[in-house]
């Protein structure tokens, strides 16, 4: 299958290795990956902060960038949820009905990574190797807007060498919430503290999830505490193989650069 990769603005700008891992994984599974060069953002940050009018041109750019794509995959539950639930809505509210229709049609072909792997490609064992103790945080939008359910866990259970430990209070929000993390920094930090306490109680080397935004939040807190646990995106774990193991055996995901 020819798969168009939507890196998402945050991954593309801050953690490009997550998009790289997604591409590596999909190519290893035998699919052709294309990366539309004019892609930018889905518009969620604008919509959720109250700038729904200003989100419309961003949605238009997204729809233009992915015109004609057979399937679009993004390593983010949150961005895919926004594409499904918000893009057409804000376009329609602004009276841009043609754009809304196009956004709706594109959304129907847009998938979060774990849903694409399990539901569309029908694969659970992606041939990955990652010999580490890992706990999984089900991010809110993957959990409650996309209902990805246990798909990421199915994928992780099939990874060779991976020791999956259950995260207590897994379904509680980590406190990121986009601009919430800045506008309500104290409440956000209180939520993060409780999330980190649960992550650390698992003694996992790595906390993983399907969203780089939540991982940047949890990881930023863990890093500030100089804790030994780090955050790694699900795509990076699934892209790792024996051939690409690093000689130092760190928890760094083994993805070819």
């Amino acid at each position, binding site marked *: 299958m020819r798969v168009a990769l939507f890196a998402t603005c945050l991954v593309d700008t801050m953690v*490009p290795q997550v*998009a790289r891992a997604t591409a590596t994984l999909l190519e290893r599974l035998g699919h052709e990956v294309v990366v539309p060069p004019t892609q930018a953002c889905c518009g969620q940050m604008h919509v959720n902060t109250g700038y729904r009018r*200003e989100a419309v041109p961003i949605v238009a750019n997204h729809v233009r960038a992915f015109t004609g794509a057979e399937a679009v995959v993004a390593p983010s539950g949150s961005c895919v949820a926004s594409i499904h639930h918000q893009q057409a809505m804000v376009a329609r509210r602004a009276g841009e009905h043609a754009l809304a229709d196009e956004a709706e049609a594109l959304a129907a072909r847009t998938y979060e990574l774990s849903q694409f792997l399990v539901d569309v490609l029908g694969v659970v064992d992606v041939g990955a190797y990652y010999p580490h103790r890992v706990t999984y945080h089900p991010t*809110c939008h993957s959990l*409650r807007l996309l209902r990805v359910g246990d798909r990421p866990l199915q994928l992780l259970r099939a990874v060779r060498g991976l020791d999956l430990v259950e995260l207590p209070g897994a379904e509680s929000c980590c406190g990121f919430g*986009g601009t919430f993390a800045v506008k309500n920094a*104290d409440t956000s930090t209180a939520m993060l503290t409780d999330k980190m306490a649960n992550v650390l109680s698992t003694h996992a080397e790595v906390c993983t999830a399907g969203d780089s935004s939540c991982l940047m939040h949890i990881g*930023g*807190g863990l*890093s500030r505490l100089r804790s030994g646990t780090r955050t790694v995106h699900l795509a990076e774990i699934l892209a790792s193989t024996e051939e690409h193991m690093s000689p130092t055996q760190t928890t760094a995901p083994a993805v070819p650069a």
Partner: protein
Amino acid sequence: MAISAASSDPTPLAPGAPRSGTTFLGLPTAPRGVGHLRGTQSFPDAARTALRDGQLRANLGRATTTIRGKRAAVVAEVPHWEQLRQAGKALKAATMARLDEHLEELERQVTARGGTVHWARDATEANRIVTGLVRATGSDEVVKVKSMATQEIGLNEALEAAGIEAIETDLAELIVQLGEDSPSHILVPAIHKNRSEIREIFSRTIPGVDPGLTDEPRQLAMAARTHLRERFLCARVAVSGANFAVAETGTLAVVESEGNGRMCLTLPQTLITVMGIEKVVPRWEDLGVFLQLLPRSSTGERMNPYTSLWAGVTPGDGPQDFHLVLLDNGRTAVLADEVGREALHCIRCSACLNVCPVYERAGGHAYGSVYPGPIGAVLSPQLTGVEDNASLPYASSLCGACYDVCPVAIDIPSILVHLRAEHVEAQTRPTAEAVAFRGLSRVMSNPRLWHLAQRAAGLGRFLARGRPTLPAALPPPASAWTRTRDLPTPPGRSFVQQWTEEHRS
């Protein structure tokens, strides 16, 4: 012919107006200076103080965890919960669509059964009506059934100003009243207090209380019972709210756990019920849906211990003088908003509070309104006008746990996002944030500018001077992040740029 993508609404609309294409003149919201819908601080400021209260965090964490578990267990045993929930939602939506007709039918039926109906446009009017009715009885005290509507309008303060003492009879409301505190939860107003704190309040405030009172729940309940029983027996006037009102039969309904409400509803001579207009349901059989949804969502019980139903007056049985005060106080304004009106479907179960990670940590007082938590964050700003409660729609990480548990499936996250936009669009002068977001919108819709911006962000790596994270001391607004969280050092090139260069051929 296709509508031009660039065409905009030809009619200028008032801020907060529905985009229906017609001019909207606005509707009155809850007035300032009366009642408890507005706080004195913004949510972030109020929360900052609450978050440092370790006792509060412990009390709330324990209580919400317990009640979450109870709710989940009793909801799971209903085989068709989702259908029941959708039935509740559909009933509410249909009722709101013809609210005026149902209210007039309710008035006819209550009147036909010997009750008197009063219409109150807002808190001030409702307080005046109730005060006048109590005065007419010659009584200088009233016993109260737990009620959100009377908390909303500040009835106790209004009665006090008229020389009438209002006695809260719900155990938790009594704790709050005796402690000169304010409620912090819709169902459990004293959720922020633990047993030993309650023992301290009772020992200090209840006259003649046993000096050996312990914090054992039964002892505390018995102390309150002794204190209240006397008041029930001499009370001549009671004030209540209502959970439901059935239009076709003129029946009012109050559901409760303690039986204190039943005492108030049956013993006094005069009963005055203050009810928000959205509480009406058209038919008797509609109660069948809501009386299943409410207790399981609220207290985590299959059925609540006391369900009191009454219609008008019955000679020789119960209150002989019944008044129903129908309260608007901004509700019609909420009804006018196509997105926000769903907030009126709320049946005040408080399940959304119990699952909310923000409520669990900041507590109810931080919201500044008698309606805290997720439902409060969408209801209070709409009742008062969003500019009077502008920080509340942002008091959520949009995690969606509230929507999942709501027994009438109110899409609270979508209303929060809608109200944020209403706030942004109500600004007449550009804020720094608006300038930034407008600029970013132009950048994110133009690939060439976007790539330049990404390169500029990549320059941030030089601030890190080779370290994997950026310095913690960054200027605002980045400092709000970096005060407690590291930011990774941005890479020199984005993935899309790398990939495009690799595949250029």
